[in-house]
């Protein structure tokens, strides 16, 4: 199954990157959201996928019955999702404020600080 998900990851990276390359600053948020989804899926997939076998210890056992989905990437992804959520929320506020302060949503108008 990984091949298909890999294609999806690629598409998410591509669309996300494309959004980051747009000039309208709201697109930046969209781009970051998309590319984060891509990265999360990528981490999730990179160890291999297994359908429907969560790593849960059954009530009468001591170890999860093999095979089970690799729990470590899941934990990483969970961390990454929450961090990503925090960053996205912040970026959203930042974009809103920046738009207000500059009065333009064209990122090319944002060039007073480095030229």
């Amino acid at each position, binding site marked *: 199954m990984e091949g298909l998900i890999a294609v999806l990851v690629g598409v998410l990276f591509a669309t996300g990157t494309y959004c980051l390359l747009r000039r309208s600053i709201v697109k930046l948020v969209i781009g970051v959201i998309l590319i984060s989804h891509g990265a999360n899926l990528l981490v999730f997939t990179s160890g291999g996928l297994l359908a429907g076998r*969560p790593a*849960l*210890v059954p009530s009468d056992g001591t170890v999860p019955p093999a095979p089970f989905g690799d729990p470590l990437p899941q934990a990483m992804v969970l961390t990454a999702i929450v961090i990503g959520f*925090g960053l996205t929320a912040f970026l*959203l*506020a930042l974009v*809103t404020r920046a738009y207000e302060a500059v009065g333009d949503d064209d990122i090319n108008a944002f060039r007073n600080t480095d030229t």
Partner: protein
Amino acid sequence: MKYFILKEASRVLFPALLVLSLVVLYRGHNLPGGGFIGGLLAAIAFILVGFGNSMKRAKDLLRLNPVQIMALGLATAVLSAVPGLLFNAPFLTGEWLPGFSLPLLGKVHLGTPLVFDIGVYLVVLGFVLHSTFSLARLADIQMEEEKS
């Protein structure tokens, strides 16, 4: 009027969601769930109140300032490491009370990882609510401006 349904729903859902979040928090160690999910659920409960009623009402229900909640959550998470250190184990070592049984809950294990998860719960709750309240202020102003 258009928020009437939401208002009614929030009245019912608020306590339900809050309880659910606590359950999810507690059972997270053994079944899907945990501090994140619990915290997010609790936050959604408050946000529902905010939508159905008003953000101010949600804040009142919260009683504490979200910043304080986050700080308490962080403090809880850090403090969960202390018992381990007292037993001369490395930082964040889990320490467990002996297991015991309770009615309803069955066999109970209480330990520092659960305390840690409570910290996570609080921080996530505080984070979502602080952001929501802040951004909601922006939206309120926007509406006022449009009215005037």
